[in-house]
């Protein structure tokens, strides 16, 4: 019954008028920056950090956390409406979400992603409260070898993501992997593939790549024939999912929540894999997988739940161990230390008000986000009615501001423009950008973890199969790959036979 008294303490803290106001402020700012393409939670939290100096640590962290998970809610909005993923975790949402918008079901897509996110957020909050500490111990079993195998599994998912040719999808994944090796080598400090160009020495930024090949390229493509783009805006349709759509989404939301929660706990930003894994699972479980990529609601409900669940559970390593699993959490560590709270295993016992207050505020924040987001859907959908000649300069402008704000670097903006042209070429040749982004996101971790594992094992590749968790993950990867490739192989055989 400790849990209940702790939660009571937490809600006591989180429900104070001031903390409610701070939670709302955080969620609202988070929604806004999530909606603005390119402006990510990292830049925003860094900018707002000094403003929180005057607030007590609990309030400050409640607000900053609100910005983070609020951005996950908002990020899906741009993915659905304008096909621009604001975060690595919303790449998958563009696949079916934007298709739904094109069919006049933008409201339904936004609605289901808000509802799915709320359910996922609530479940994940309970997980953190009830099982935070034991889950942390389990996550510590994940060493470099396990992580490498997990990434291999993730890459096999990417093959399934492809809407068209599997060969082209694999080519895109490999290109993404190649892009991820640009920059300073972690082990030796040598520069690779930078061609002596200093801004490349830290590698490509995810936002630069994503805004370029998704955002800018999409704008160029739409400008090519503005008529078709303007057809989309005529159809608005219902704003909320109906009962049949809710039923269709129920199980994907549940599955997405658990996949996302499990991957979110892992150190080293396992949360990015959640939406990809969920999408793959839903596509495989669907009776008619050909609907995916053409506006299947499960392809929005599952991944959106997974990404929000992952965003919440990635607080677990931070809160129970004091070790940040990703860049946003590293910023939260900074925020804690600036406020005089030393992050570490002691936070739970030394600052129970902070620990439980934050957890309680996460649930309250999710409820607030649902309340903020549902009425906003009408507004977002109306945005689609804005003529494209007015929309696209605004999209480009916000993208540029967002990209500039990451590193305060004009070179990044120029590089995004370059990737815009590159992405346009990809669209023209029928290559999908989503597998490229997944390859890019996983590539860096893949290489890093493989080298770490091999250094630890003194160069023995057996380490990946000798360790049981790692071996299990590799086995799943093989199964996924075989299942993905078999239909296309058998189909080709049929083609051969009919000729």
């Amino acid at each position, binding site marked *: 019954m400790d849990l209940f008294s702790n939660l009571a303490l937490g809600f006591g803290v989180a429900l104070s008028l001031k903390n409610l106001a701070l939670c709302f402020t955080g969620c609202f700012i988070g929604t806004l920056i999530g909606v603005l393409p390119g402006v990510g939670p990292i830049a925003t939290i860094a900018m707002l950090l000094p403003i929180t100096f005057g607030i007590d640590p609990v309030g400050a962290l409640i607000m900053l956390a609100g910005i983070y998970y609020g951005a996950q809610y908002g990020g899906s909005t741009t993915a659905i409406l304008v096909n621009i993923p604001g975060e690595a975790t919303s790449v998958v949402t563009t696949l079916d979400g934007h298709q739904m918008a094109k069919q006049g079901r933008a409201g339904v897509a936004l609605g289901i992603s808000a509802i799915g996110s709320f359910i996922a957020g609530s479940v994940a909050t309970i997980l953190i409260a009830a099982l935070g500490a034991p889950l942390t111990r389990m996550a510590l079993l994940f060493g470099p070898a396990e992580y490498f195998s997990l990434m291999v599994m993730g890459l096999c998912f990417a093959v399934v993501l492809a809407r068209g040719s599997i060969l082209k999808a694999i080519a895109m994944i490999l290109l993404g992997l190649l892009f991820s090796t640009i920059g300073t080598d972690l082990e030796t400090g040598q520069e690779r593939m930078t061609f002596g160009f200093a801004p490349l020495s830290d590698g490509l930024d995810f936002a630069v790549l994503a805004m370029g090949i998704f955002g800018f390229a999409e704008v160029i493509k739409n400008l090519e024939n503005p008529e078709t783009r303007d057809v989309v805006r005529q159809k608005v349709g219902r704003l909320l999912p109906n009962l049949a759509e809710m039923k269709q989404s129920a199980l994907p939301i549940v599955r997405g929540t658990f996949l996302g929660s499990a991957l979110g706990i892992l150190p080293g930003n396992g949360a990015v894999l959640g939406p990809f894994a969920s999408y793959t699972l839903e596509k495989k479980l669907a009776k008619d997988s050909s609907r995916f990529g053409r506006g299947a609601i499960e392809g929005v409900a599952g991944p959106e739940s997974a990404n929000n669940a992952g965003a919440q559970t990635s607080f677990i390593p931070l809160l129970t*161990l004091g*070790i940040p699993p990703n860049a946003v959490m590293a910023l939260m560590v900074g925020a804690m230390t600036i406020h*005089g709270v030393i992050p570490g295993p002691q936070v739970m016992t030394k600052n129970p008000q902070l620990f439980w207050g934050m957890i309680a505020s996460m649930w309250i924040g999710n409820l607030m986000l649902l309340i903020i987001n549902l009425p906003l859907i009408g507004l977002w959908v109306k945005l689609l009615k804005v003529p494209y000649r007015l929309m696209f300069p605004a999209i480009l402008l916000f993208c540029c501001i967002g990209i500039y704000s990451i590193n305060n670097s004009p070179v990044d903006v120029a590089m995004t423009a370059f990737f815009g042209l590159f992405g346009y070429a990809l669209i023209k040749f029928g290559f999908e950008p989503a597998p490229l982004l997944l390859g890019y996101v996983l590539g860096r971790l893949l290489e890093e973890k493989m080298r770490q594992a091999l250094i630890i094992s003194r160069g023995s590749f057996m380490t990946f199969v000798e360790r049981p968790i790692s071996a299990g993950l590799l086995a799943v990867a093989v199964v996924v790959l075989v299942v993905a490739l078999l239909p296309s192989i058998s189909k080709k055989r049929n083609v051969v036979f009919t000729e």
Partner: protein
Amino acid sequence: MTILSRRTMFGAVAVAASLGFAGAAQAQAYPNKPITMFVAFAAGGPTDVIARIVSEHMSKTLGQQIVIENVAGAGGTTTTARVAAAAPDGYTLIMGQMGTHAAAPALYPNLKYNPITDFTPIGIAGITPIVIVTKKDFPANNLREFVAYLKANPGKVNQAHAGVGSTAFTTCVLLTAQIGVPKLNAVAYRGTGPALNDLVGGQVDFMCDQVTNLTPQILAGNIKAMGIATPARLPVLPNVPTTAEGGLPEYQISGWNGIFGPKGLPKDIQDKLVDALNKALEDPTTNKRLADLGTVIPNAQERAPAGMAAVLARDIALLDKPLRDSGAVGQ
């Protein structure tokens, strides 16, 4: 020390003369607009935290806001080079640290700045002692056993660090050079967080890093501390013996963060900044916030320009050979 301050004086006079009357008038009004303090690392990191805590109080003394700007890249050297080339008007400063100023010359052959001659030192803002830690089930229980184990098991021990050029990397290179076991399996991680995660998880054997990062895990028993590289024990870790107690007195190294301006900063501006830094470090609230992190507050000498210059020169000399011998070279 006198030679150094005289040299700075001379530099200041020369610059004041070259700028003429306008420069002097501007300096009198300093600061009349917000000051940018660059942090060459991501927000939330140890350097950023110290910069924010110290600059908050310095802003009060100076009557102008100090704005922290985080521009990370190439181990912090890009931003450091940018500040070195900035106008010496006191509105562009950098929170430098051991990596960007003491270790960079040995690591980056094409470094675009000289950490001593291209900067005007203000003073050290915080010192973060280095502690040697192992995973909790490591066979050794103290520094003597640790050194003996390393020597007896060459090639069997894995050391984690936070990337080439990081404090964890630099201080460990010095340690292994001094012990005489240079051929260790060094596992690079992207930052202290992931490295520490795998140390707590028992995937790697040991690391050296700043107390600020390690104290909570040591106190919780998630990792074992072998020794702390300071002359005396630290109040936050009273049970951790010093390296001298553990039979390795030559291993004396601390991470530090210090404020630098571009070279040729006028003397009166430098004085104002030194004064503001001193007031910040003497302020009980600021002082306590830094101390709670495990940061050692620099003494009167270290927080003055000449004192920081001396620390910088000492560390460059100390780290140069071990780093070059380690074969790690950035671009």
